[in-house]
């Protein structure tokens, strides 16, 4: 026998697909004979060419055949799918609802992630913009990494390094802004160098970006601010009064997009500050005073790493000396890419709270969980129902359907289901979006038509869900041998129930994990709220001090307000716990020698400790009777005693340089008391060393402890008095407990999201279980009838039907417990003070899963148990 060459074998391979089966053999033979002949007469190449031409000639008839049959079959599949949806309405409902909820969750999370990732991308030069941030290495407990730098950084960097194309400083301020009779307190006011419009992309609708902020006392305002102050009039060249100083509007910019890590309504020129002699010394020549956000624009061909390497030398050259004398330590600078600030930067003194990549990850995992649970529902119900479809498949195979076609049909059917669910999901999303926005604190909008990434991912989602949930049933059902199916010789139900059981366990494992996570988050939140804070946060009214005259006459103001007997005590301070705390350098002198430290500092008056309800554990509080307390007394907290190993804290001498050490010692004295540790920052952090002293220059709030009864009367009194004292500013107040609780906002958000999503997950899983129970009862109708006839009690039947599933659900706990414990343990590691994950949470989760499973099944089980056996046996 002659050996056939490879090229012919390869060509014959195509024949298999192009030619109907019955023609394949003889046609291949004819072609081979012909080709041989040609190859003998004219050479092998000609023979191959001839063969290829023959195959090409076969193509038209192939396509004609193929499409006409496909179209017919697709219509048939479609018809059968619709009939099945109608015939098994309950199952279809369960499948579609589950999938729709799952997909809606995924779409919402997608929108969320897309929004989080879009931060700061709108700047044309986003890739080249970096923020300079400083890290302190000073003895003392102050947090190390700051988003701030000092003022000379920006101009000096630009001058020293050719890599730096441009640099800008931002200084955030909250000020009263007035125009004629319009007065607003502006939270989003920034002082900025003129280069701000060169670096960032904030398009101006009026004015020249090059020159807008060059002159002192010029401002650029946003369109909405312009509308607020000037109405429809042209704002250009009009004058706004900011903090008793006049500014000319030299530009109007488009409103800033919300997805920016800082939000500005007004940019005022930095020159306004810079020109003043006192600020020159205080800010613009000091390398130690960290108050400015510095952004640089790198030249295109330079990398940030190369620049960063040169920073230590740069700091050594300019800043090190000054920082050593003033702060008693060293700093190092780093560059942060603009695009990573929102999700990855969690430094001290961020402009506004940033997002967190961790939350993005957590949300994604939850969405995936829910989607998987919904997919499992689909798989389970489809395989369970395969008994009903087996006859159809058998018949299709008998009349000539190939396995491939059956797979195609079932995959197509699941895609059809998924498409249906997707439409429902999109409707759900439209309704849920406002709720989701309030949950996450975002302003996401749905623009299906313009959001190509979203459209693309929805398409992928459709394919993914359709194929994942359809693939197992498709491959499983298509395997049936028609003979067995039609003769009913195989017991389909027994075959694949392992997989079904496994999937039920999987579903409930995920649900229980989410449930436990929710419980732990709630528990931790509760723990944080009820932790001993070290002060009494109830019934303290906090009023921001806006006017300099109040600041100057603080004591008189206090005396005025204290006339009301309902006001127990009041204090004027930099900030209440949970609010502003300063940080500054001091020198401690003990028996062992001198220590230069930088630590947290609270400026206040004599009544701080009393008003906040704190406790003095050693020594005494400030007292007005001691005339020296205002000038040479300090309180420290227990953490400071521990951290600096002060054996006799009351004999420690303290020196403080005031606003700047370089200009001499402002205050010198000793520690008069130790205050019990109290929580002045977020409860994520451990309590840092702190020093409190009487100093009235940097005070920003007036806090009063009031009697719990007649709060509204007391508030009215305060408001009246305050309006007399400070008529220029609107009266604002807040309660300290509310402000303090805001610290947990991100945890609260997380706990809400966990609650909602874990409820959804459990709901979908229960829905699936309901479907399975329904199916099982249907399958065993006859068995139940026979059992009842033979004398089984209702209880027996109930137990018979529910025990299997209940067992599965309990079994799921075995997997869920360790996983949940591990995950939640990791999460709790973020907190300095954390709750122990109690065993009761696990028991509780198991109990809830058990009860839900039992309730779901019992409805079906009861129906079956109650049914008259005659009904169930007569149907044959």
């Amino acid at each position, binding site marked *: 026998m002659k050996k056939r060459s490879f090229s012919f074998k390869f060509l014959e391979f195509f024949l298999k697909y192009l030619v109907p089966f019955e023609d394949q053999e003889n046609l291949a*033979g*004819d072609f081979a004979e012909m080709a041989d002949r040609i190859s003998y007469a004219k050479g092998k190449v000609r023979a191959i060419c001839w063969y290829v031409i023959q195959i090409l000639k076969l193509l038209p008839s192939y396509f004609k055949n193929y499409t006409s049959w496909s179209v017919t079959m697709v219509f048939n599949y479609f018809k059968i799918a619709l009939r099945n949806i109608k015939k098994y309405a309950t199952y279809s409902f369960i499948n579609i609802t589950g999938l729709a909820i799952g997909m809606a969750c995924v779409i919402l999370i997608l929108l969320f992630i897309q929004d989080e990732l879009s931060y700061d991308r709108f700047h044309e030069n986003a890739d080249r913009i970096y923020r300079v941030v400083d890290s302190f290495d000073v003895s003392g407990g102050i947090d190390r990494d700051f988003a701030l730098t000092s003022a000379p950084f920006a101009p000096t960097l630009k001058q020293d390094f050719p890599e730096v194309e441009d640099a800008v400083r931002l200084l955030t301020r909250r000020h009263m802004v007035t125009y004629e009779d319009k007065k607003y307190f502006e939270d989003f006011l920034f002082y900025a160098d003129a280069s701000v419009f060169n670096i960032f992309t904030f398009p101006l609708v009026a004015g020249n970006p090059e020159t807008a902020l060059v002159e002192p006392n010029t401002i650029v305002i946003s369109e909405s601010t312009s509308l607020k102050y000037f109405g429809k009039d042209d704002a250009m060249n009009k004058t706004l009064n900011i903090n008793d100083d006049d500014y000319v509007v030299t530009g109007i910019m488009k409103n800033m997009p919300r997805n920016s890590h800082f939000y500005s309504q007004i940019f005022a020129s930095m020159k306004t500050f810079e020109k003043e002699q006192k600020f020159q010394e205080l800010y613009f020549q000091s390398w130690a005073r960290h108050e400015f956000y510095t952004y640089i624009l790198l030249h295109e061909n330079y990398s940030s790493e190369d620049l960063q390497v040169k920073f230590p030398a740069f700091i050594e050259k300019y800043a090190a000396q000054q920082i050593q004398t003033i702060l008693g330590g060293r700093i190092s600078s780093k560059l942060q890419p603009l695009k990573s600030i929102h999700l990855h930067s969690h430094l001290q003194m961020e402009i506004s709270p940033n997002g967190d990549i961790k939350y993005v990850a957590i949300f994604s995992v939850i969405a995936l969980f829910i989607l998987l649970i919904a997919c499992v529902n689909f798989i389970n119900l489809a395989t369970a129902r395969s008994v009903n479809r087996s006859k159809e498949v058998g018949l299709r195979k008998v009349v000539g359907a190939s396995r491939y076609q059956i797979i195609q049909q079932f995959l197509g059917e699941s895609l059809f289901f998924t498409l249906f669910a997707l439409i429902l999901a999109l409707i759900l999303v439209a309704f849920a979006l406002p709720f989701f926005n309030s949950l996450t604190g975002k302003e996401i909008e749905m623009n299906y038509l313009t959001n190509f990434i979203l459209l693309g991912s929805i398409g992928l989602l459709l394919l993914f869900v359709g194929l994942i949930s359809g693939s197992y049933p498709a491959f499983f059902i298509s395997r049936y041998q028609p003979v067995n199916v039609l003769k009913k010789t195989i017991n389909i139900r027994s075959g694949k129930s392992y997989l079904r059981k496994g999937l039920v366990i999987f579903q409930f494992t995920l649900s229980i994990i989410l449930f436990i996570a929710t419980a732990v988050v709630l528990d931790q939140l509760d723990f944080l709220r009820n932790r001993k804070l070290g002060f009494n946060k109830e019934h303290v009214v906090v009023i921001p001090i806006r006017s300099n005259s109040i600041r100057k006459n603080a004591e008189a103001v206090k005396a005025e307000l204290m006339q009301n007997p309902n006001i127990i005590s009041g204090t004027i301070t930099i900030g209440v716990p949970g609010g502003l705390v300063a940080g500054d350098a001091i020198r401690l002198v003990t028996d062992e020698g001198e220590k230069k430290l930088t630590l947290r500092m609270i400026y206040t008056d004599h009544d701080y400790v009393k008003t906040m309800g704190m406790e003095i554990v050693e020594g005494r509080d400030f007292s007005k009777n001691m005339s020296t307390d205002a000038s040479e007394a300090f309180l420290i907290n227990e953490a400071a005693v521990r951290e600096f190993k002060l054996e006799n804290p009351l004999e420690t001498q303290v020196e403080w340089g005031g606003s700047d050490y370089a200009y001499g010692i402002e205050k010198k004295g000793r520690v008069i008391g130790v205050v019990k540790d109290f929580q002045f920052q977020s409860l994520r952090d451990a309590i840092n060393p702190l020093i409190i002293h009487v100093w009235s220059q940097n005070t920003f709030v007036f806090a009063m402890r009031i009697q719990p009864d007649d709060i509204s009367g007391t508030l009215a009194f305060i408001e009246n008095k305050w309006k007399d004292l400070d008529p220029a500013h609107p009266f604002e107040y807040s309660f300290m407990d509310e402000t303090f609780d805001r610290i947990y906002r991100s945890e609260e958000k997380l706990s809400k999201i966990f609650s909602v999503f874990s409820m959804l997950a459990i709901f979908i899983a229960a829905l699936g279980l309901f479907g399975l129970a329904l199916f099982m009862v249907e399958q065993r109708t006859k068995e139940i009838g026979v059992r009842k006839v033979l004398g089984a009690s209702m209880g027996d039947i109930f137990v018979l039907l529910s025990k299997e599933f209940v067992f599965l659900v309990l079994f799921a706990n075995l997997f869920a417990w360790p996983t949940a414990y591990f995950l939640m343990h990791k999460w709790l590691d973020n907190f300095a003070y954390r709750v122990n994950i109690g065993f009761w949470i696990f028991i509780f989760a198991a109990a809830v899963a058990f009860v839900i499973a039992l309730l779901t099944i019992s409805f079906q089980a009861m129906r079956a148990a109650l049914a008259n056996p005659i009904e169930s046996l007569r149907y044959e």
Partner: protein
Amino acid sequence: MKNLTRKEELIMLSILNLKSNAYLIAIVDHLTKITGKNVSLTSVHIPLSRLEKFELIKSNYGEATAVRGGRRKKIYKITNLGLEALEEHKRVSDILWEDYLEYLLPKE
């Protein structure tokens, strides 16, 4: 009764000529030989499948041969219906051809 085309007539008659070896390539060869023109595979294959569809011919598989890569031949045979069709065709043809014979015979 289906009317045969010239091509179909040629193919069916070839099948009769070739007897038990009437498969595609043999028919092509046979026709090429008698007509002296090139006959392509396609021009035979398509009428063949048409004839088979109208049940004028039928086919079964013959033996495998080495030259065909071990594949069997599809051997065609004329069915009774096919014979009837041929006879009808011949009858009509013969009537039509009659004058031609007269034309050829020398006139007396």
